């Protein structure tokens, strides 16, 4: 069951990611990105990250993608035309990429010590309760620094949205 769920959603994630890069129109890319985010949320759930799966759906597939689609609609960007690629790139690109992926996968396989499989329910610390406790005790300083980062981002967005720039 775990293996079937993993295979289905990992395949959907990778196919949607390829579709994101291949599609000519930005709206199609945005919809593919939503597919990637949703299937990654399922993978997080399989890995025991319950809170992160919810955050992934709400923040990424909800908020960020609405922002992207809003900007695409605002800028009214049409389909982009292709620049002519070199023959070598189209001929050797995909096979070399697959070979590189297989090579690195083999290296990871050999380098990582053998473990038992990842089963759903094997890691139960990803609850909001546990995450909140660690976030507000052990990682309190990074949390506060992150609030400063968000403040800077807000000020930057406001400055950039002004008329004069």
């Amino acid at each position, binding site marked *: 069951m775990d293996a079937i769920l993993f295979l289905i959603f990992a395949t959907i994630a990778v196919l949607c990611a390829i579709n*994101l890069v291949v599609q000519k129109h930005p709206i199609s890319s945005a919809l593919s*990105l939503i597919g990637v*985010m949703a299937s990654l949320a399922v993978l*997080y759930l399989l*890995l025991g990250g319950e809170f992160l799966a919810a955050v992934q759906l709400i923040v990424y597939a909800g908020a960020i993608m609405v922002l992207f689609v809003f900007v695409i609609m605002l800028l009214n*960007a049409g389909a982009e035309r292709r620049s002519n690629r070199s023959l070598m790139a189209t001929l050797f690109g995909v096979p070399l990429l697959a070979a590189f992926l297989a090579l690195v996968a083999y290296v990871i*396989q050999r380098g990582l010590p053998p473990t038992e499989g990842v089963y759903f329910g094997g890691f139960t610390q990803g609850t909001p309760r546990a995450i909140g406790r660690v976030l507000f005790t052990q990682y309190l300083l990074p949390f506060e620094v992150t609030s400063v980062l968000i403040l800077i981002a807000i000020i930057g967005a406001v400055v950039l949205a002004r008329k004069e720039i």
Partner: protein
Amino acid sequence: MHPVTTVHYLVVGLALLLIGTIGVLTRRNIVVILMSIELILNAVNVNLIAFSRHLQDLSGQIFAIFVITVAVAEAAVGLGILIALFRNKETVLADEVDLLKW
């Protein structure tokens, strides 16, 4: 059936990272480039959470939350820059913005 191990999740993250890098390098629309950057950050998150499960340690998931926060801030500022750029140059294609080109 062969069990799914941490390696499989790492390979999924690696595949997403490679695809995102290709998107950043080959696409010309800046909106799609920003989306590819989101893809790369998600690949990092997959790795962090897979290792959090592998080591039975919650710290990886906390780091993933920070990565999501930084990704949101980056998307907001990036799209703000893009709006300001479009207002001045009337384009969203990266190769038509060559103000800094010598």
